[in-house]
């Protein structure tokens, strides 16, 4: 009971922070729209991949996944900002378990990501993707799974880092490759073998494929396979981040 209340409190703080930083929500929604409208129209009008619904519709699920990726990883790194402001110390000396802190933060960050994906899903008419209540709910559930896994990955990396100095390294070596390899911008069928291999190492690939399946009705892998991989990814990252956070606690205060 006590731990649940604590997780709720940590979640609540995270959500309050998101809601109060209005500029963050605006950027989080506008950036994907710029991708869809400028990159999508620009590249879409010069190539013909023979994709139903056009290139814009094709990248729409990928861009939703991308926006989740950016928000959750930077949210996870936010753990180091909590450290900087001393909030983490306040949490660390409270009578609650280390995994509860991680779980509460992951839930909070994921909630922000879900709010933002929800807005993007409601804007599906821009790219002429039909939306009904069932595809909306299914998409949200899938986004939740992706968000929990990725925010835990962010928290895991933050637990292993000393300060926010390494943030750029993570953007370059983790976030950008994950985004580009996920098939968000191009179909992952018919790639050279070496690239194909790396693509399927990227957990985001399964998120993008799953969303594409739900929203556009065309996916490379069956939905249940995507769900299994994403669930495993989430379990592994949550466990690892809880372990790393507990082990590294003295570094974090």
């Amino acid at each position, binding site marked *: 009971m006590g731990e649940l*209340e604590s997780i709720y*409190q940590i979640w609540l*703080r995270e959500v309050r*922070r998101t809601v109060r930083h209005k500029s963050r929500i605006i950027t989080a929604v506008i950036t994907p729209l710029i991708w869809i409208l400028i990159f999508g129209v620009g590249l879409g009008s010069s190539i013909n991949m023979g994709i139903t619904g056009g290139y814009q519709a094709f990248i729409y699920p990928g861009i939703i996944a991308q926006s989740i990726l950016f928000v959750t990883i930077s949210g996870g790194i936010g753990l180091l900002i909590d450290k900087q*402001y*001393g909030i983490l110390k306040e949490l660390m*000396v*409270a*009578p609650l378990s280390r995994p509860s802190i991680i779980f509460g933060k992951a839930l909070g960050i994921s909630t922000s990501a879900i709010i933002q994906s929800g807005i993007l899903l409601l804007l599906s008419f821009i790219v002429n993707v039909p939306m009904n209540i069932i595809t909306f709910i299914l998409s949200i559930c899938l986004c939740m799974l992706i968000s929990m896994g990725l925010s835990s990955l962010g928290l895991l990396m933050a637990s292993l880092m000393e300060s926010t100095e390494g943030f750029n390294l993570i953007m370059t070596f983790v976030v950008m490759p994950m985004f580009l390899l996920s098939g968000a911008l191009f179909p992952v069928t018919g790639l050279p073998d070496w690239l194909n291999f790396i693509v399927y190492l990227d957990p985001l690939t399964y998120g993008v494929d799953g969303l594409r399946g739900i929203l556009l009705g065309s996916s490379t892998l069956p939905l249940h396979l995507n769900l299994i991989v994403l669930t495993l990814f989430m379990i592994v990252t949550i466990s690892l981040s809880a372990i790393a956070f507990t082990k590294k606690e003295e570094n974090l*205060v």
Partner: protein
Amino acid sequence: MSNYIIETKEITKYYDDFRAVNGVNLKVPKNSAYGILGPNGAGKSTLISMLCTIFSPTKGTAIVNGYDIVKESHNVRKSVGIVFQNRALDDVLTGREHLEMHAALYGVKKDVRQDRIDDILELIDLGDKIDEKVKNYSGGMKRKLEIGRGLIHHPKVLFLDEPTLGLDVPTRENIWSYIKNLRNNIDITILLTTHYLEEADSLCDEIAIIDHGEIVKTGSPSNLKDGLKIDTIILKSLKNNQLKDILQNQSFVNELNYDGSEIRLSVDKGAKLIPEIVHIAEINDITIESMELKQPSLEEVFIKYTGYKIDR
């Protein structure tokens, strides 16, 4: 139950080869205000961090409120409130939200949470500001909020790590009177670290002087000062030379200096000697024009035990 709320047993913390705290044995009486006085880097914060279970000791342990800090850290955490040296507030949350979150994290039941918050608000006196975001608070208000927050779960011990560091003098005095007021209103032990001597003198019943990770002296501020035996009495009379010669032969005078206008006596307990000196002067028919007693400050105590000034 022991009369001591905190007892450390050879508590030691190494950072690699550096001994931050080295075999410290402290006994803090229940409901006292105990000060740990030392220069920056003496090991004060490390000691407090171990007592509130942030760091685990390399060797030794401590008992806080009857619980072992190593084996029963969860219970220790429930028993203590902490105000860190550096701010630990979220700028975009309001003061009230901080209090609510803290109360919930420490298991204060929902139905009493509001009452607890109201009690604290009365104590910390932040007025309407409590519903504003913390980024609009002044340094003193933030500190008060943090102290209030540390009290909301009714801890047995409140740790204050350099509570007035970086605050201006009026704010510092304000926080002092707030802490004193606190002690008059609730049963709580306060353990504070400081490198301000006035702070230790004004707030603490007992003091431990810490230097290079070791306790060099403990005692109440007045005992420590008495122990120095360096009260100075400064005298002036119309017959200075005659008075000087008489006093020179008194056993209570440790040292006498005369510069032609003032006689300076170095004695053990100046306050008790003043009537005697007046009496000696009277029977010798000498009128004393002025007499001044100078007691040693905590600063001098500190210099004696560590060999240097604290604010070096």
